[in-house]
Protein backbone atom coordinates (compact mmCIF):
# COMPACT_ATOMS: atom_id res chain seq x y z
CA UNK A 1 0.00 0.00 0.00
CA UNK A 2 1.47 3.32 -1.07
CA UNK A 3 1.60 6.38 1.18
CA UNK A 4 -0.40 9.47 0.25
CA UNK A 5 2.64 11.70 -0.29
CA UNK A 6 6.33 12.23 0.28
CA UNK A 7 7.78 11.53 3.72
CA UNK A 8 9.87 14.05 5.67
CA UNK A 9 12.47 12.91 8.22
CA UNK A 10 12.87 14.39 11.68
CA UNK A 11 13.50 13.66 15.35
CA UNK A 12 10.87 13.57 18.08
CA UNK A 13 11.33 16.28 20.70
CA UNK A 14 8.33 16.08 22.98
CA UNK A 15 4.87 14.53 23.21
CA UNK A 16 2.26 17.16 23.98
CA UNK A 17 -1.03 15.81 25.27
CA UNK A 18 -1.97 12.50 23.67
CA UNK A 19 -1.85 13.11 19.96
CA UNK A 20 0.61 15.86 19.12
CA UNK A 21 4.38 15.45 18.94
CA UNK A 22 6.90 18.25 18.51
CA UNK A 23 9.39 17.18 15.85
CA UNK A 24 12.74 18.70 14.91
CA UNK A 25 13.11 18.48 11.15
CA UNK A 26 16.47 17.88 9.53
CA UNK A 27 16.77 21.60 8.73
CA UNK A 28 16.56 22.41 12.46
CA UNK A 29 12.98 23.71 12.41
CA UNK A 30 10.63 22.39 15.10
CA UNK A 31 7.09 21.62 13.95
CA UNK A 32 4.15 19.88 15.61
CA UNK A 33 2.95 16.62 14.08
CA UNK A 34 -0.38 14.92 14.56
CA UNK A 35 -0.33 11.27 15.56
CA UNK A 36 -3.65 9.45 15.14
CA UNK A 37 -2.64 6.41 17.22
CA UNK A 38 -2.45 7.14 20.94
CA UNK A 39 -0.49 3.92 21.50
CA UNK A 40 2.26 5.07 19.13
CA UNK A 41 2.32 8.61 20.50
CA UNK A 42 2.85 7.11 23.97
CA UNK A 43 5.99 5.35 22.73
CA UNK A 44 7.41 8.55 21.35
CA UNK A 45 10.53 9.52 23.30
CA UNK A 46 12.87 12.44 22.78
CA UNK A 47 15.47 11.76 20.11
CA UNK A 48 13.55 9.02 18.26
CA UNK A 49 13.72 9.35 14.48
CA UNK A 50 10.31 9.87 12.88
CA UNK A 51 8.93 10.16 9.38
CA UNK A 52 6.21 12.66 8.73
CA UNK A 53 3.67 12.91 5.95
CA UNK A 54 3.22 16.51 4.78
CA UNK A 55 -0.33 17.75 4.30
CA UNK A 56 -1.06 18.71 0.71
CA UNK A 57 -2.55 21.98 1.98
CA UNK A 58 0.40 24.06 3.16
CA UNK A 59 -1.81 26.55 5.02
CA UNK A 60 -2.81 23.98 7.65
CA UNK A 61 -1.68 24.79 11.17
CA UNK A 62 -0.74 21.15 11.84
CA UNK A 63 1.11 20.54 8.60
CA UNK A 64 2.46 17.10 9.44
CA UNK A 65 1.13 13.71 10.31
CA UNK A 66 3.42 11.32 12.15
CA UNK A 67 3.51 8.21 10.00
CA UNK A 68 6.55 6.33 11.30
CA UNK A 69 8.46 6.14 14.53
CA UNK A 70 11.86 4.43 14.87
CA UNK A 71 12.28 2.56 18.12
CA UNK A 72 15.46 0.75 19.19
CA UNK A 73 14.37 -2.19 17.04
CA UNK A 74 13.08 -0.56 13.91
CA UNK A 75 10.32 1.45 12.29
CA UNK A 76 6.72 1.38 13.50
CA UNK A 77 3.90 2.48 11.23
CA UNK A 78 1.63 4.81 13.16
CA UNK A 79 -1.60 5.02 11.21
CA UNK A 80 -4.10 2.27 12.13
CA UNK A 81 -6.53 3.60 9.54
CA UNK A 82 -4.86 1.43 6.92
CA UNK A 83 -5.41 -1.91 8.70
CA UNK A 84 -8.26 -2.99 6.51
CA UNK A 85 -6.48 -1.97 3.32
CA UNK A 86 -3.32 -3.82 4.34
CA UNK A 87 -5.32 -6.94 5.09
CA UNK A 88 -7.31 -6.78 1.86
CA UNK A 89 -4.17 -6.30 -0.21
CA UNK A 90 -2.46 -9.26 1.47
CA UNK A 91 -5.56 -11.44 1.12
CA UNK A 92 -5.86 -10.75 -2.59
CA UNK A 93 -2.14 -11.48 -3.04
CA UNK A 94 -2.68 -14.75 -1.09
CA UNK A 95 0.03 -13.79 1.37
CA UNK A 96 -1.86 -14.98 4.43
CA UNK A 97 -1.20 -18.69 4.66
CA UNK A 98 -4.15 -19.61 6.90
CA UNK A 99 -6.63 -17.84 4.67
CA UNK A 100 -5.55 -19.22 1.31
CA UNK A 101 -8.45 -21.71 1.17
CA UNK A 102 -10.85 -18.80 0.99
CA UNK A 103 -11.60 -17.31 -2.39
CA UNK A 104 -13.48 -14.13 -1.69
CA UNK A 105 -13.44 -11.43 0.91
CA UNK A 106 -16.28 -9.05 1.75
CA UNK A 107 -15.94 -6.06 4.07
CA UNK A 108 -18.70 -6.18 6.67
CA UNK A 109 -20.68 -3.29 8.05
CA UNK A 110 -20.74 -2.99 11.82
CA UNK A 111 -24.46 -3.71 11.94
CA UNK A 112 -23.90 -7.03 10.19
CA UNK A 113 -21.42 -8.48 12.66
CA UNK A 114 -20.79 -6.15 15.61
CA UNK A 115 -17.39 -5.00 14.47
CA UNK A 116 -16.01 -8.06 12.70
CA UNK A 117 -14.23 -6.66 9.64
CA UNK A 118 -14.42 -9.29 6.89
CA UNK A 119 -16.40 -12.30 5.79
CA UNK A 120 -14.44 -14.82 3.75
CA UNK A 121 -16.00 -17.48 1.58
CA UNK A 122 -14.36 -20.69 0.43
CA UNK A 123 -14.91 -22.65 -2.78
CA UNK A 124 -17.61 -24.79 -1.22
CA UNK A 125 -19.33 -21.91 0.47
CA UNK A 126 -17.60 -22.37 3.84
CA UNK A 127 -17.41 -19.14 5.81
CA UNK A 128 -14.77 -17.50 7.92
CA UNK A 129 -14.81 -14.18 9.75
CA UNK A 130 -11.87 -11.90 10.40
CA UNK A 131 -11.30 -9.02 12.79
CA UNK A 132 -8.22 -6.95 11.94
CA UNK A 133 -6.34 -5.01 14.59
CA UNK A 134 -2.92 -3.44 15.16
CA UNK A 135 -0.57 -4.37 17.97
CA UNK A 136 2.03 -1.80 18.92
CA UNK A 137 3.48 -3.07 22.19
CA UNK A 138 6.78 -4.90 22.37
CA UNK A 139 7.99 -7.14 25.18
CA UNK A 140 11.10 -9.33 25.42
CA UNK A 141 11.80 -8.77 21.74
CA UNK A 142 8.30 -9.87 20.71
CA UNK A 143 5.25 -7.93 19.60
CA UNK A 144 2.98 -8.17 22.65
CA UNK A 145 -0.79 -8.59 22.60
CA UNK A 146 -3.65 -8.13 23.34
CA UNK A 147 -3.95 -4.36 23.29
CA UNK A 148 -6.52 -2.70 25.53
CA UNK A 149 -10.07 -3.64 24.57
CA UNK A 150 -13.24 -1.67 25.02
CA UNK A 151 -16.79 -2.79 25.70
CA UNK A 152 -17.69 -3.07 22.02
CA UNK A 153 -14.72 -5.27 21.22
CA UNK A 154 -15.71 -7.52 24.11
CA UNK A 155 -19.19 -7.74 22.55
CA UNK A 156 -17.57 -8.57 19.25
CA UNK A 157 -15.83 -11.54 20.83
CA UNK A 158 -19.28 -12.78 21.86
CA UNK A 159 -20.42 -12.40 18.26
CA UNK A 160 -17.40 -14.43 17.17
CA UNK A 161 -18.47 -17.22 19.49
CA UNK A 162 -21.90 -17.22 17.84
CA UNK A 163 -20.21 -17.55 14.47
CA UNK A 164 -18.18 -20.51 15.69
CA UNK A 165 -21.33 -22.14 17.05
CA UNK A 166 -22.82 -21.80 13.58
CA UNK A 167 -19.86 -23.66 12.11
CA UNK A 168 -17.79 -20.78 10.77
CA UNK A 169 -14.12 -20.26 11.40
CA UNK A 170 -13.11 -17.06 13.13
CA UNK A 171 -9.77 -15.27 13.00
CA UNK A 172 -8.30 -12.32 14.82
CA UNK A 173 -5.71 -10.90 12.47
CA UNK A 174 -3.11 -8.91 14.35
CA UNK A 175 -0.91 -6.61 12.34
CA UNK A 176 2.32 -5.56 14.00
CA UNK A 177 3.19 -2.51 11.88
CA UNK A 178 6.91 -2.94 12.48
CA UNK A 179 9.93 -4.81 11.14
CA UNK A 180 11.84 -5.55 14.33
CA UNK A 181 9.82 -8.52 15.63
CA UNK A 182 9.35 -11.93 14.16
CA UNK A 183 7.46 -13.36 17.10
CA UNK A 184 4.36 -12.28 18.97
CA UNK A 185 3.77 -12.95 22.62
CA UNK A 186 0.56 -13.24 24.61
CA UNK A 187 0.83 -10.86 27.55
CA UNK A 188 -1.28 -10.66 30.70
CA UNK A 189 0.21 -7.30 31.68
CA UNK A 190 -1.02 -4.79 29.08
CA UNK A 191 -4.71 -5.15 29.90
CA UNK A 192 -5.53 -8.15 32.15
CA UNK A 193 -9.24 -7.95 31.30
CA UNK A 194 -8.56 -8.03 27.58
CA UNK A 195 -6.05 -10.84 28.12
CA UNK A 196 -8.63 -12.89 30.02
CA UNK A 197 -11.22 -12.30 27.28
CA UNK A 198 -8.74 -13.28 24.57
CA UNK A 199 -7.66 -16.34 26.53
CA UNK A 200 -11.28 -17.49 26.78
CA UNK A 201 -11.74 -16.74 23.09
CA UNK A 202 -8.75 -18.89 22.18
CA UNK A 203 -10.13 -21.74 24.29
CA UNK A 204 -13.40 -21.40 22.41
CA UNK A 205 -11.73 -21.81 19.05
CA UNK A 206 -10.97 -18.32 17.82
CA UNK A 207 -7.77 -18.37 15.81
CA UNK A 208 -5.04 -15.78 16.10
CA UNK A 209 -2.86 -14.79 13.18
CA UNK A 210 -0.07 -12.30 13.48
CA UNK A 211 1.97 -10.68 10.70
CA UNK A 212 4.68 -8.08 10.75
CA UNK A 213 5.13 -5.52 8.00
CA UNK A 214 7.67 -4.63 5.38
CA UNK A 215 8.26 -0.91 5.47
CA UNK A 216 9.72 0.72 2.38
CA UNK A 217 10.33 4.23 1.20
CA UNK A 218 7.07 4.48 -0.72
CA UNK A 219 4.87 1.79 0.70
CA UNK A 220 4.04 -0.66 3.46
CA UNK A 221 2.82 -4.23 3.15
CA UNK A 222 2.25 -7.31 5.25
CA UNK A 223 5.49 -9.27 5.38
CA UNK A 224 5.97 -12.39 7.47
CA UNK A 225 3.85 -14.54 9.64
CA UNK A 226 4.88 -14.21 13.28
CA UNK A 227 5.07 -17.19 15.55
CA UNK A 228 2.80 -16.68 18.54
CA UNK A 229 4.17 -17.57 21.97
CA UNK A 230 1.60 -18.23 24.67
Amino acid at each position, binding site marked *: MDYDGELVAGTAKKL*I*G*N*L*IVDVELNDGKIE*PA*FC*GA*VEVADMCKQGMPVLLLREA*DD*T*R*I*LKNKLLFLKTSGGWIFADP*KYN*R*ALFKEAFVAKKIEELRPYKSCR*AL*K*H*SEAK*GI*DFELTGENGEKAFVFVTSIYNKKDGCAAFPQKM*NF*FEMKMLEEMRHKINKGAKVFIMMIAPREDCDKAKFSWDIDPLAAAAMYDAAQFGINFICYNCKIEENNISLHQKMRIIY
Partner: protein
Amino acid sequence: MSNRNKDGIVIHTDKKDFEGMRKAGKIAAECLDFITPYVKPGVTTEYLDDLCAQFIKEKGVISACIGYHGYPKYTCISINHEICHGIPSPERKLLDGEILNIDVTVIADGWHGDTSRMYYAGKPSVKAKRLCDVTYECLMRGIEAVKPGAYFGDIGAVIEEIAHHYGYSVVDMFCGHGLGKVFHDEPNVMHCGKKGTGPRIEEGMFFTIEPMINFGKKDATILANEWTAVTKDRSLSAQFEHSLAVTSNGAEIFTLSPKGMDKPPY
Protein backbone atom coordinates in the same frame (compact mmCIF):
# COMPACT_ATOMS: atom_id res chain seq x y z
CA MET B 1 -32.59 2.09 0.62
CA SER B 2 -31.88 3.10 4.16
CA ASN B 3 -32.66 1.85 7.64
CA ARG B 4 -31.84 2.81 11.20
CA ASN B 5 -29.34 0.90 13.29
CA LYS B 6 -29.75 0.10 16.98
CA ASP B 7 -28.53 3.60 17.90
CA GLY B 8 -31.26 5.10 15.72
CA ILE B 9 -28.80 6.32 13.10
CA VAL B 10 -29.81 6.04 9.46
CA ILE B 11 -27.54 3.80 7.37
CA HIS B 12 -27.67 4.71 3.70
CA THR B 13 -26.95 1.93 1.25
CA ASP B 14 -28.47 3.34 -1.93
CA LYS B 15 -26.09 5.08 -4.32
CA LYS B 16 -28.86 7.55 -5.08
CA ASP B 17 -28.73 8.78 -1.47
CA PHE B 18 -25.07 9.58 -1.93
CA GLU B 19 -25.78 11.32 -5.24
CA GLY B 20 -28.51 13.40 -3.59
CA MET B 21 -26.17 14.46 -0.80
CA ARG B 22 -23.35 15.23 -3.24
CA LYS B 23 -25.64 17.56 -5.17
CA ALA B 24 -26.97 19.33 -2.08
CA GLY B 25 -23.49 19.57 -0.53
CA LYS B 26 -22.00 20.97 -3.70
CA ILE B 27 -24.62 23.71 -3.99
CA ALA B 28 -24.16 24.69 -0.34
CA ALA B 29 -20.39 24.87 -0.86
CA GLU B 30 -20.82 26.84 -4.08
CA CYS B 31 -22.98 29.31 -2.18
CA LEU B 32 -20.14 29.91 0.29
CA ASP B 33 -17.70 30.26 -2.62
CA PHE B 34 -20.05 32.75 -4.27
CA ILE B 35 -20.41 34.97 -1.21
CA THR B 36 -16.67 35.19 -0.54
CA PRO B 37 -15.83 38.37 -2.52
CA TYR B 38 -18.76 40.23 -0.98
CA VAL B 39 -17.50 39.80 2.60
CA LYS B 40 -15.76 43.08 3.33
CA PRO B 41 -15.92 45.91 5.84
CA GLY B 42 -18.97 48.13 5.45
CA VAL B 43 -21.47 45.57 4.14
CA THR B 44 -24.36 44.51 6.32
CA THR B 45 -24.96 40.90 7.25
CA GLU B 46 -28.45 41.17 5.79
CA TYR B 47 -26.91 42.12 2.43
CA LEU B 48 -24.82 38.94 2.54
CA ASP B 49 -27.91 36.95 3.48
CA ASP B 50 -29.87 38.48 0.57
CA LEU B 51 -27.10 37.52 -1.86
CA CYS B 52 -27.04 33.95 -0.56
CA ALA B 53 -30.84 33.78 -0.78
CA GLN B 54 -30.68 34.93 -4.40
CA PHE B 55 -27.97 32.37 -5.21
CA ILE B 56 -29.97 29.57 -3.59
CA LYS B 57 -33.05 30.59 -5.53
CA GLU B 58 -31.17 30.73 -8.81
CA LYS B 59 -29.88 27.22 -8.22
CA GLY B 60 -33.46 25.99 -7.93
CA VAL B 61 -33.07 24.74 -4.38
CA ILE B 62 -34.38 26.04 -1.06
CA SER B 63 -32.84 27.17 2.19
CA ALA B 64 -33.41 24.83 5.11
CA CYS B 65 -32.90 27.65 7.59
CA ILE B 66 -35.70 30.08 6.82
CA GLY B 67 -38.79 29.10 8.74
CA TYR B 68 -36.99 26.34 10.63
CA HIS B 69 -38.58 26.63 14.10
CA GLY B 70 -39.32 30.22 13.14
CA TYR B 71 -35.79 31.20 12.07
CA PRO B 72 -36.18 34.40 10.05
CA LYS B 73 -33.28 34.35 7.53
CA TYR B 74 -31.70 32.19 4.85
CA THR B 75 -28.30 31.86 6.50
CA CYS B 76 -26.74 32.18 9.92
CA ILE B 77 -24.01 34.81 10.16
CA SER B 78 -22.14 34.87 13.43
CA ILE B 79 -19.59 37.60 14.07
CA ASN B 80 -16.63 37.63 16.48
CA HIS B 81 -17.91 36.38 19.86
CA GLU B 82 -21.09 34.94 18.38
CA ILE B 83 -20.72 31.18 18.40
CA CYS B 84 -23.54 30.26 16.03
CA HIS B 85 -27.05 31.13 14.82
CA GLY B 86 -26.27 34.81 14.34
CA ILE B 87 -29.25 36.43 12.62
CA PRO B 88 -28.37 38.62 9.62
CA SER B 89 -29.37 42.19 10.26
CA PRO B 90 -29.72 45.39 8.19
CA GLU B 91 -28.12 47.34 11.05
CA ARG B 92 -25.05 45.23 11.52
CA LYS B 93 -22.24 46.41 9.30
CA LEU B 94 -18.99 44.48 9.20
CA LEU B 95 -15.98 46.29 10.61
CA ASP B 96 -12.39 45.94 9.51
CA GLY B 97 -10.68 43.04 11.27
CA GLU B 98 -13.84 41.20 12.26
CA ILE B 99 -14.18 37.46 11.73
CA LEU B 100 -17.47 35.85 10.85
CA ASN B 101 -18.99 32.49 10.16
CA ILE B 102 -21.54 31.99 7.39
CA ASP B 103 -23.60 28.84 7.75
CA VAL B 104 -25.69 27.66 4.81
CA THR B 105 -28.01 24.69 4.51
CA VAL B 106 -29.81 23.97 1.27
CA ILE B 107 -32.38 21.37 0.40
CA ALA B 108 -31.92 19.87 -3.06
CA ASP B 109 -34.36 17.15 -4.12
CA GLY B 110 -35.12 16.59 -0.43
CA TRP B 111 -31.46 16.18 0.60
CA HIS B 112 -29.73 18.60 2.98
CA GLY B 113 -26.32 20.11 2.33
CA ASP B 114 -25.06 21.85 5.47
CA THR B 115 -21.76 23.70 5.63
CA SER B 116 -20.14 26.74 7.15
CA ARG B 117 -16.84 28.59 6.89
CA MET B 118 -15.08 31.47 8.56
CA TYR B 119 -14.45 34.73 6.69
CA TYR B 120 -12.34 37.77 7.40
CA ALA B 121 -13.73 41.27 6.93
CA GLY B 122 -10.58 43.15 6.01
CA LYS B 123 -7.44 42.19 7.89
CA PRO B 124 -7.98 40.10 11.00
CA SER B 125 -5.82 40.23 14.11
CA VAL B 126 -3.15 37.58 14.50
CA LYS B 127 -5.10 35.99 17.33
CA ALA B 128 -8.31 35.85 15.28
CA LYS B 129 -6.51 34.29 12.33
CA ARG B 130 -4.88 31.72 14.55
CA LEU B 131 -8.23 30.80 16.12
CA CYS B 132 -9.68 30.22 12.63
CA ASP B 133 -6.66 28.13 11.57
CA VAL B 134 -6.92 25.95 14.67
CA THR B 135 -10.69 25.53 14.26
CA TYR B 136 -10.21 24.38 10.67
CA GLU B 137 -7.52 21.97 11.85
CA CYS B 138 -9.95 20.61 14.46
CA LEU B 139 -12.56 20.00 11.77
CA MET B 140 -10.19 18.26 9.36
CA ARG B 141 -8.53 16.08 12.02
CA GLY B 142 -11.98 15.23 13.35
CA ILE B 143 -12.97 14.10 9.85
CA GLU B 144 -9.78 12.00 9.67
CA ALA B 145 -10.96 10.11 12.75
CA VAL B 146 -14.06 8.98 10.84
CA LYS B 147 -13.94 5.40 9.59
CA PRO B 148 -16.14 2.35 9.99
CA GLY B 149 -15.53 0.73 13.36
CA ALA B 150 -14.34 3.92 15.07
CA TYR B 151 -16.48 5.66 17.69
CA PHE B 152 -18.17 9.04 17.72
CA GLY B 153 -16.15 9.76 20.87
CA ASP B 154 -12.96 9.48 18.78
CA ILE B 155 -14.00 12.54 16.76
CA GLY B 156 -14.59 14.64 19.87
CA ALA B 157 -11.38 13.43 21.51
CA VAL B 158 -9.26 14.57 18.55
CA ILE B 159 -11.00 17.96 18.28
CA GLU B 160 -10.69 18.61 22.00
CA GLU B 161 -7.04 17.57 22.06
CA ILE B 162 -6.08 19.96 19.26
CA ALA B 163 -8.13 22.88 20.59
CA HIS B 164 -6.66 22.49 24.08
CA HIS B 165 -3.17 22.13 22.65
CA TYR B 166 -3.45 25.64 21.26
CA GLY B 167 -5.03 26.96 24.45
CA TYR B 168 -8.64 27.20 23.23
CA SER B 169 -11.87 25.67 24.51
CA VAL B 170 -14.51 23.60 22.76
CA VAL B 171 -18.17 24.61 22.97
CA ASP B 172 -20.14 21.65 24.31
CA MET B 173 -23.58 23.28 24.14
CA PHE B 174 -23.92 22.56 20.40
CA CYS B 175 -22.91 19.58 18.36
CA GLY B 176 -22.82 18.12 14.87
CA HIS B 177 -25.78 16.08 13.73
CA GLY B 178 -27.00 13.41 11.41
CA LEU B 179 -28.63 14.69 8.23
CA GLY B 180 -30.03 13.48 4.95
CA LYS B 181 -33.69 13.84 4.13
CA VAL B 182 -33.99 15.32 7.62
CA PHE B 183 -32.08 18.47 8.68
CA HIS B 184 -31.23 17.43 12.24
CA ASP B 185 -31.23 13.73 12.91
CA GLU B 186 -29.40 11.15 15.00
CA PRO B 187 -26.58 11.03 16.00
CA ASN B 188 -25.43 13.99 18.06
CA VAL B 189 -21.80 14.43 17.08
CA MET B 190 -20.07 15.87 20.13
CA HIS B 191 -16.92 17.89 19.59
CA CYS B 192 -15.38 16.80 22.85
CA GLY B 193 -15.20 13.42 24.48
CA LYS B 194 -13.22 10.30 25.01
CA LYS B 195 -11.72 7.93 22.48
CA GLY B 196 -13.57 4.63 22.26
CA THR B 197 -16.88 5.96 23.60
CA GLY B 198 -20.25 6.71 22.03
CA PRO B 199 -21.95 4.85 19.18
CA ARG B 200 -19.88 3.00 16.59
CA ILE B 201 -19.38 4.72 13.25
CA GLU B 202 -20.70 2.70 10.33
CA GLU B 203 -20.39 2.90 6.60
CA GLY B 204 -23.36 4.73 5.08
CA MET B 205 -23.93 7.21 7.90
CA PHE B 206 -24.39 10.87 6.94
CA PHE B 207 -23.59 13.55 9.50
CA THR B 208 -21.96 16.92 10.06
CA ILE B 209 -18.89 17.81 12.06
CA GLU B 210 -18.92 21.47 13.06
CA PRO B 211 -16.59 22.31 15.92
CA MET B 212 -17.09 25.64 17.63
CA ILE B 213 -13.86 26.75 19.25
CA ASN B 214 -13.59 29.65 21.68
CA PHE B 215 -10.58 31.82 22.35
CA GLY B 216 -11.59 32.00 26.03
CA LYS B 217 -13.86 29.77 28.06
CA LYS B 218 -16.29 27.30 26.52
CA ASP B 219 -19.38 28.70 28.23
CA ALA B 220 -22.11 30.03 25.99
CA THR B 221 -25.28 31.98 26.48
CA ILE B 222 -28.25 32.68 24.21
CA LEU B 223 -29.19 36.25 23.34
CA ALA B 224 -32.67 37.72 23.77
CA ASN B 225 -33.48 36.94 20.12
CA GLU B 226 -33.60 33.30 21.32
CA TRP B 227 -31.30 32.15 18.53
CA THR B 228 -27.84 33.63 18.73
CA ALA B 229 -25.35 31.88 20.98
CA VAL B 230 -22.44 33.99 22.20
CA THR B 231 -19.46 33.28 24.39
CA LYS B 232 -20.21 34.15 28.00
CA ASP B 233 -16.85 35.88 28.40
CA ARG B 234 -17.29 37.65 25.03
CA SER B 235 -14.12 36.05 23.68
CA LEU B 236 -13.81 35.28 19.96
CA SER B 237 -15.35 32.10 18.60
CA ALA B 238 -14.85 30.29 15.29
CA GLN B 239 -16.54 27.43 13.49
CA PHE B 240 -16.18 25.36 10.33
CA GLU B 241 -18.58 22.69 9.19
CA HIS B 242 -18.73 19.93 6.61
CA SER B 243 -21.42 17.39 5.77
CA LEU B 244 -19.98 13.95 5.14
CA ALA B 245 -20.67 10.29 4.61
CA VAL B 246 -18.84 7.36 6.13
CA THR B 247 -17.28 5.23 3.39
CA SER B 248 -15.58 1.84 3.59
CA ASN B 249 -12.22 3.38 4.45
CA GLY B 250 -12.94 6.85 5.81
CA ALA B 251 -15.19 9.74 4.91
CA GLU B 252 -16.49 11.43 1.80
CA ILE B 253 -16.92 15.17 2.34
CA PHE B 254 -19.96 16.44 0.45
CA THR B 255 -19.34 20.14 1.04
CA LEU B 256 -15.77 20.69 -0.13
CA SER B 257 -15.37 23.99 -1.93
CA PRO B 258 -15.34 23.46 -5.72
CA LYS B 259 -12.93 26.41 -5.89
CA GLY B 260 -10.67 25.13 -3.11
CA MET B 261 -11.78 27.96 -0.82
CA ASP B 262 -12.28 25.84 2.28
CA LYS B 263 -10.38 28.06 4.65
CA PRO B 264 -9.50 31.78 4.75
CA PRO B 265 -7.73 33.80 3.53
CA TYR B 266 -9.54 33.32 0.22
